[in-house]
């Protein structure tokens, strides 16, 4: 099964795009897209960067740490934005979580 429904994204989540949501660079239009069932989403630059880091192993907290270091920006603000973006994707059904959770 493609992961549980109603994913609630938190700092500890280890999200990943499911098999049916493909992040791809569209060579014709020169933009990144997420291909999903009968949908094409246009993620912004930050969303692309976040999704490239979300491999099912890194937690949302890890991803935020990396971005905070890279952009020398406040971690809390980044964490809030990352969670909001991922939650939006999860609500659309295009995000899953790694199955084995480290607790």
């Amino acid at each position, binding site marked *: *099964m493609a992961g549980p429904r109603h994913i609630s994204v938190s700092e500890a989540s280890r999200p990943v795009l499911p*098999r*049916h949501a493909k992040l791809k660079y*569209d060579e014709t*239009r020169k*933009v990144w897209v997420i291909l999903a*069932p009968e949908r*094409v989403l246009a993620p912004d630059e930050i*969303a692309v960067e976040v999704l490239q880091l979300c491999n099912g192993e890194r937690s949302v907290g890890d991803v935020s740490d990396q971005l905070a270091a890279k952009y020398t920006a406040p971690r809390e603000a980044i964490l809030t934005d990352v969670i909001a973006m991922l939650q939006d994707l999860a609500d*659309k059904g295009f995000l899953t979580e790694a199955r084995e959770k480290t607790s």
Partner: protein
Amino acid sequence: MTDVLGNPPPPSDSLAVLEKQRSTAETFGIPLAVLLEITHRCPLQCPYCSNPVELDRSTKELTTDEWKKVLGELAEIGVLQVHFSGGEPTARKDLVELVRHASDVGLYTNLITSAVLLTRAKLGELADAGLCHVQISFQGIEEGLTDRVAGYKGGHRKKLEVAKWTRELDLPLTVNAVMHRQNLHQLPEIIQMAVDLDADRLEVANVQYYGWALKNRAALMPTVAQLDECTRLVEEARERLKGTLAIDYVVPDYYALRPKKCMGGWGRQFFNISPAGKVLPCHAAESITGLEFESVRSNHSIAWIWQNSEAFNRYRGTGWMKEPCKSCEFREIDFGGCRCQAYALTGDAANTDPACALSPLHETIFKQAEAEAEGETNRFLYRNFAGGTLESENGA
């Protein structure tokens, strides 16, 4: 994150171009998704089939190599997704090969199927070939009605089975429910069925009345009360099932005041390829007599056909419009509605779609639909290659 689509649109034009849209053909972007009707053969005989009344025979169908060439060309010009549809796409023995080729050239693949010809093994092969998404049509929630609508015994049970296999293979599932007067009472259970099948999406698609459906309008047209209840149920379910089941909703436009922006506007965001290889602005376009459609078998590239062919440019933009469309403030919002419907109901595809309240024919057609909805005609004219077969009196 921008959803390129905005609000859930009708299934047939659910993908828009990424580029800002302009009104001249030369600058038109290639659609993100293309519908491939790889065959018109189908074991089902649904009376509202969206295929043209004059179906392409199997001898006219593109060959495996021709379809592969099409897939390569589509990927090259910037198409991102293809929908393998029909007829029944699994009636083609080379479907796995075509899906694999589509995946190899980088296309996202959707299968739009009645499911009745699929086996567990075949679905597994399709998944291995890279299939990304399965959409299964349902005619209702129980065998009696659904097998009667489809004119196919045992279909409903098979669909449930295939839906289960789809999820077991970790493929996302869309349940497509085509709604009309004779099954709208089952909508609450259809919504629950989609949840129980662990579907990601449900399309509640009221019949659109062209081709076969127009011939069956008296047996299918819902009443205004039924439609109001349908809308209420969809809105309630969307709220209740947020994050669990996405619901796309299409209303029959006879009861609307504004026409639909059919296909996102003629030749603006959509084309499909017929079994014989014709490149069409919509799957019903061949019903407009007098239009010549170019084929992928011609010397022209698909991109050339999309941008330059007579048929695509005929109703593109607003230059072709007559009154009341021509001076209408909504002309670039709905592009005068549906050309096929305008042709079918008025005899001229350049007339305003009578679904529009500004069409001089709107009132007459609305009243006619209302009268048919209240009528006693429930017998179907089943879809087939012979031009249709009327259901027997006792419903068989």
